[in-house]
């Protein structure tokens, strides 16, 4: 571990975060958008674990543990919402889901 500079991990994490953001911005399939959000959460987790490891205290890893819990809960609810919308509209294309505007 010590031979890899900490910044390498952080840059990797930032990169994955931005890839996730880009995915959220450009994809149309709601499930894929949600997957990109998971990607963002994971990159944040990578940062947390990196800091935790280099600082030598477990708080960051405990945080990651809870982030995973939250991600699981969000996945359950989010996929349920997407299924509900698919039942009514037969699409998960988020561009078509816009009855409310202005």
């Amino acid at each position, binding site marked *: 571990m010590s031979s890899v500079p900490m910044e390498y991990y952080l840059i990797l994490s930032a990169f994955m975060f931005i890839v996730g*953001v880009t995915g959220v911005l450009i994809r149309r399939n709601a499930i894929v958008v949600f997957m990109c959000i998971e990607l963002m959460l994971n990159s944040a987790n990578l940062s947390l674990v990196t800091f935790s490891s280099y600082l030598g205290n477990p708080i960051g890893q405990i945080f990651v543990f809870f982030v995973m819990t939250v991600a699981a809960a969000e996945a359950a609810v989010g996929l349920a919402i997407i299924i509900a919308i698919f039942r009514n509209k037969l699409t998960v294309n*988020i561009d078509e889901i816009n009855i409310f505007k202005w």
Partner: protein
Amino acid sequence: MSESLLINLSIIILFLPLAGFIKVVLFGKKFPKLYLLEVAIISIAFALSVFVMYSKLAYYNTKDIIGAFTWISTGNAPFSDVLNIELGIKIDNVTVIMLFVVNLISMLVHIYSIEYMRGDKRYTRYFSYLGIFTFSMLGIVLTHNLLMMYIFWELVGLSSYLLIGFWFEKKSAADAAKKAFIVNRIGDIGMFIGILILFTSYKTFTFDTIFAQIAAGNLPFGSSAWLTAAGILVFMGAVGKSAQFPLHVWLPDAMEGPTPVSALIHAATMVAAGVYLVTRIFVMLTADAMLVIAVVGAFTSLIAATIALTQNDIKKVLAYSTVSQLGYMIMSLGVGAYVFAFFHLVTHAFFKACLFLGSGSVIHSMHHEQDIRNMGGLKKKMPVTYWTFLISTIAISGVPLTSGFLSKDGILAGTLAFGKLTGHWLIPIIGFTVAALTAFYMFRLVILTFHGEPRDHHKFDHAHESPLVMIAPLAVLATLSIFIFYTPNPLSPDAGWFMSSWVKTPEQVTPVDTRFDFLKPSAENIHGGHHGEIVHSVLYTETMHWAHYPAMILSLVVAGLGILTAFMFYQWKKINVDKLIENKFTNALYRGSLNKWKIDEAYDATAINGTLQTGSGLSWFDQKIVDGAVNGSARLTRIVSKISGWFDTYAVDGFVNFTAFFSGFIGLSFRKLQTGKVQTYIVLVVFSVIILLLFFKPF
């Protein structure tokens, strides 16, 4: 007769009308006779206020009675100052006289309305509105702090909204109510900011505490300019409520309300609230603030008088006359003639209420005809109305033996003295001009309405004298327009009890250098007289004496001239009015006056149109620019050209259109992004992140 009794009685007087309001609102539908209770309640309040006035003037003439309790106290708050906000009432001589006037007129209007409003489908609700209105007005009169003043101020605005818009089925009435409310709010912004300035400096709303702090040399933010600003800003509230230029436009429109309401609102209460506010803050006004006030008042009185000359609606004439007289009072305060301003407030309340109620009597008997061109000759049919109306007209014109002469003369003397001491001669000149105009248009009104031959025979035949409950209030008010109630000497108010012992100019608290120095006691009379009794310099007292007789003679002359001209024009028809206005120059003046100098139209073109355009501009953006930004540059060019077209059309005239442009700009930047599509939302979020990161990094 203890002080606490007076305080308690005043509180009872304050809440009696509210209690009436609540009862009528809750049970009005089940017991339609409940309006009688409301009338009874207001009569009790009046009786109590007579008692309070008598006790105060007789036993505590020189003492201010204050009853207050701490309402909000932030106790051990961690910030620097401890904040205590007190609520309470202050009873001084001005208060009790106002209490008497408001309750008297409110009671008379209640009685009068029993007949006038009979048969209206919202009869009981009308009385409940009168109740809440009286309550709010009494609150303004009794309060001892700016916070309660502001709260009741807004309540007056709200209840006047209800009363003016009482016949809201008529679009004009609903519009007038809205206009009154909105125009008043504009003034209130200034008042609110002024109050905030005072509050942040002194951490209190209480008048006396603020004044004491100023007297101790503690100015807001350490500068007398801020004191001037605070004075003018608070005065803006009065500009709204007392219908001073440029916010006077609501008052003539407010004539859409029932006529007794006009009498109540426009004679004794709502519009008087503005003048009353200025008397309350009078002691903290600096020279600059007073000059502003004097100029605003003078200009208002002139412009309203010129408009009143040519109006044909009986109530419109009275409305503009009210605006003009209010300008008089404001001007009088501005030139330092505090006592005469308040005196005029009282006398004007009586004769103007009488005039409004009299006009109501005429309208009532003529089956809601309001155009004086269709009247005439009513003298024979309605003798009581005629005579009371005439007495009031004489009073407002400033003919001797009336109350109006006394107060008006005092104001004119005040302006004359002011002109001599400061060189602002324009103000006395306007004062005398307005006096002449007032006499003219009021007699024009009387002559056209009551004298001569009836011009609409059909309506004339049905006209009849009003029943007793309507003419009794007229008689009371007309009687109160006679000099004897105020002074034994019909030519000089100075000897009267009103002037000599009841109301005195309070001592200024502003620093010497920010004040017209003649209003401050000078060194020699502080040593000579009792401090606190004498509040003016010797110079000022002498000038007032000097001004007394010239003012009296001049005012007599101008009033006589005005009355004479009115008779020449309309009674004896020596001069043909129609001929006169054929001349190009006089015609232009006539049109200008008839069209109220196009002030309303100017507001329509700027403020109101601008607001409407804001709305339609926004909806335009909705329709056109949904996907605007995303669909490439061709679209963008079109938008830009449209914006510039839109800019040319609407955003060129004045400030309010700037607001329209501004909100349109916001619409362009943000609202089009509310496309309903999640990703556009997120793009905005990420974009904001960039901006924020750029901002917070020390790159």
